[in-house]
């Protein structure tokens, strides 16, 4: 055995699961009954805060996002507090805590108080099933993908509670929009995930990672449609900016957050980033190989690979937020039902056929590379063909700048003659 490869020894810090497991065993022997659970929670909180929450939530999530969006929009972003403005999130948090949390007289006080708290809990729960390394997964349950989908449907109800409790019509608009959008986008999302599950044959996240590791291919190549659908649906359900119709400032003030102030608003803001990071971690685990990196995970700590990948995935969210214009609600709904749903169904049929072929012919595992090529071509063809069938037309050689209404996100084919030149 190679001397530098990752081992199961407790002192091998390249997999922190070994150390924590050993530590808990020792503590369980030494301490009276049950106390180890309390200690484990405290140790786990401290460790996860140091290696994950602090870099992800504060530095990448708040600071990095504002800085990057600033750069995208040709401005500096935060640069006053601390070196390079790095202490800006801390200053913001202190400001939010000092601010008075107002409650309108006509609001439903109990619900308005409860909503931010209920909003935080599922975000923490989501990370329970995310594998950070071979042994670094808190709950390796066999239905982890379903668990993730289930728990991530709870914050929708919370945003609804928040929006309704204000007794303010803009809040209610925001809440209704969240709910309507979630119903629409959950469908293609689940259908896309179904394609992935059909391929891997497991609902466990660790199993998905190991499957990709064994076959040396990431599912993003096998399932490009599912990946795109996941990214767009997650973006829509997270209310990230190109699709944040639930809190569209230009239309309905701040949607379900209109009446919140102080730390109640801060919890929503912070946990929006938390959910985005959770979605990024989920996407990385399912589509981008999780903690593996084509053999490099034997040398570099897997959790560093995983966190790095998660942050890169989160960068995609920031990028789309900084560059794409916001969609209208009817455009978003039409896109979910008329575009993503049929394509997701097509993808599902394709995957089922391939999987059946793989099993029936008892083909070699290297057939996945052929599937990958087929699926990438099929994905491009499906997206192009279906958008042409719906009447979306790409403009190949724009000769002059024009208004959106002129060039058109949506130009029906029969009247296409005028828009094209």
């Amino acid at each position, binding site marked *: 055995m190679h001397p530098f490869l990752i081992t199961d020894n407790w002192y091998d810090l390249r997999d922190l699961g070994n150390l924590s497991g050993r530590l808990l065993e020792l503590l369980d022997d030494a301490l009276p009954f049950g106390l180890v659970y309390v200690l484990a929670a405290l140790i786990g909180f401290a460790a996860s805060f140091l290696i994950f929450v602090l870099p992800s939530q504060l530095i990448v999530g708040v600071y990095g996002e504002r800085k990057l969006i600033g750069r995208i929009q040709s401005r500096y972003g935060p640069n006053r507090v601390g070196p390079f403005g790095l202490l800006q999130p801390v200053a913001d948090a202190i400001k939010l805590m000092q601010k008075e949390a107002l409650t309108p007289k006509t609001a439903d006080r109990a619900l308005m108080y409860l909503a931010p708290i209920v909003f935080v809990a599922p975000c923490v729960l989501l990370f329970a099933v995310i594998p950070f390394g071979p042994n670094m997964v808190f709950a390796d349950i*066999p239905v982890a993908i*379903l668990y993730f*989908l*289930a728990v991530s*449907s709870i914050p929708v*109800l919370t945003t609804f509670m928040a929006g309704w409790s204000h007794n303010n019509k803009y809040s209610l608009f925001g809440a209704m929009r969240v*709910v309507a959008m*979630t119903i629409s986008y959950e469908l293609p999302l689940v259908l896309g995930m179904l394609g992935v599950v059909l391929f891997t044959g497991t609902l466990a996240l660790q199993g998905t990672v190991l499957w990709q590791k064994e076959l040396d291919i990431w599912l993003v190549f096998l399932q490009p449609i599912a990946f795109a659908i996941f990214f767009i649906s997650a973006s829509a359900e997270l209310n990230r900016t190109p699709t944040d119709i639930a809190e569209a400032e230009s239309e309905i003030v701040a949607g379900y957050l209109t009446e919140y102030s102080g730390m109640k608003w801060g919890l929503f803001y912070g946990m929006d980033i938390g959910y985005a990071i959770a979605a990024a971690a989920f996407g990385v685990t399912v589509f981008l190989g999780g903690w593996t990196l084509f053999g490099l995970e034997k040398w570099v700590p897997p959790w560093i690979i995983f966190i790095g990948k998660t942050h890169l995935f989160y960068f995609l969210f920031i990028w789309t937020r900084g560059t794409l214009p916001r969609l209208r609600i009817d455009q978003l709904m039409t896109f979910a039902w008329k575009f993503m749903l049929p394509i997701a169904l097509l993808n599902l049929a394709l995957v089922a056929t391939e999987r059946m072929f793989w099993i029936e012919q008892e083909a070699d595992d290297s057939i996945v590379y052929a599937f990958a090529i087929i699926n990438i071509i099929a994905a491009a063809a499906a997206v192009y063909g279906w958008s042409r069938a719906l009447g979306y037309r790409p403009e190949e050689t724009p000769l002059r700048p024009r208004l959106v209404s002129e060039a058109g996100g949506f130009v029906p084919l029969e009247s296409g003659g005028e828009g094209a030149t």
Partner: protein
Amino acid sequence: MEGFGVSLAFWILTGVTLVAALGVLASRNLLHAVLFLILLFVGMAGYFVLLSADFLAMAQVIIYVGAIAVLVLFAVLLTPRAGRNNGETRMFLPALLLCGTLLAIILFVITDTNWAVADESPSVTAADLGEALLSRWVLPFELASVLLTVALVGSIMLVRSREEEAEDAV
């Protein structure tokens, strides 16, 4: 599953579920009642976890909390006079009668049935469920999907306006 933790979880879940059920009955505000109902669904999912039925628990949360509860919220919001005081209604007595009868039947069935007690908990995975649904129970499964399609088409037919039908006829 056995042990102190599981018993504790069971009693906590029971408490939460009972409080939620009472909340559904007692809350005067219709929306609060729906939210209590959602809490009840989550409690039921917890029971499924305690019974080692992971897949059922997750399905319970996805379907009941994620989809049905949201639809119920929609329905409540679109109901005229949903914000009225829910305590005053003429349906109180019939509802009480119906619930009492139902409770009596369920209690009778529970006490009367000869429950088979297994020594060890059976492990049923999602794959087992899927195989059973698509082999032995394929007919009810397909019937259910046909039923859902019919419901979908029917609801679209119900809400279509005359103008839209006139447009399509052209």
